[in-house]
């Protein structure tokens, strides 16, 4: 029983870790300049594999959590939705770097 609980927790943690990392990747991609769906994919896919269908829920979530702001502009006489990181989003990125330092220490410990 205990083992099952641990397994489930491990599995959930795995998902959460991955989701968390993807969220951070998207935030990082708009850290310096506002961006739009297609470009975010292009930027991130140079580092990792991400599909259009994965990106949508992430953007939606970040918007819901009020880490990014969105606005529409016209481009080539059509509307394009831009994503802009806000103060909370920047805070979260900063926080993640501290977290990574801890994870790195844990990882070194696990790997030794």
């Amino acid at each position, binding site marked *: 029983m205990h083992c099952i609980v641990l397994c489930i927790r491990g599995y*959930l943690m795995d998902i959460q870790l991955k*989701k968390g990392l993807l969220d951070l990747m998207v935030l990082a991609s708009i850290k310096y300049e506002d961006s739009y*769906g297609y470009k975010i994919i292009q930027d991130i896919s140079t580092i990792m594999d991400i599909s259009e269908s994965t990106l*949508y829920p992430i953007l939606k979530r970040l918007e819901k959590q009020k880490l990014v702001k969105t606005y529409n502009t016209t481009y080539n006489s059509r*509307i394009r939705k831009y994503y802009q990181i806000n103060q909370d989003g920047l805070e979260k990125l900063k926080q993640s770097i501290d977290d990574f330092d801890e994870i790195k220490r844990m990882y070194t410990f696990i790997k030794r």
Partner: protein
Amino acid sequence: MNKRMFISKLKKELKNYKKIDSEEIIYYYDEMIQDALDEGQNENDFIKSLGSIDSIIGNIIKDGDFIKEVKSANNNSLINIVSTTVRVISLLCYYFALFIIGIIYISIVIAGFSVVAQAGIYLAVDNLDTMGQIALGAVMLVGLGIGLIGLALIKHLLNNTQSIRLYIIRKTKQLFSKQRSQ
């Protein structure tokens, strides 16, 4: 598949999911495809790379479930922060309420189906004229309806056990904190 076909297919599929904000998703993919085309990508190839519509919707739902999962995990922790007394009393109330409601619903199902059975027996055993047979047939249908309503209620109850439990915990907690403040 070109853009127009893809969008209309997506629109059609999304109609089956009321909880998803379909307009926004369609906008997202429309913009994405248009941007790719403006960058000089091949329309067919790009749309193929988007994956199947099933997997697109699947990803959205999966993520929704994930959010729900996290939420319910938070809700569950409610039981950890309340005191043991509140926990025991609320759980007792919960099982009692579930038991009572469950029995009521089960009795509705039994009542419904026994009407069907009774009418069926009459229909088979008694020598009835056409009018009587029609009347009994109608009674059977009514019984079937009642039985199905009962089954639906049971299903609904089983789907909502979590929220009932949380509701009772919350109420018990409120009751206790009120007593303490008096």
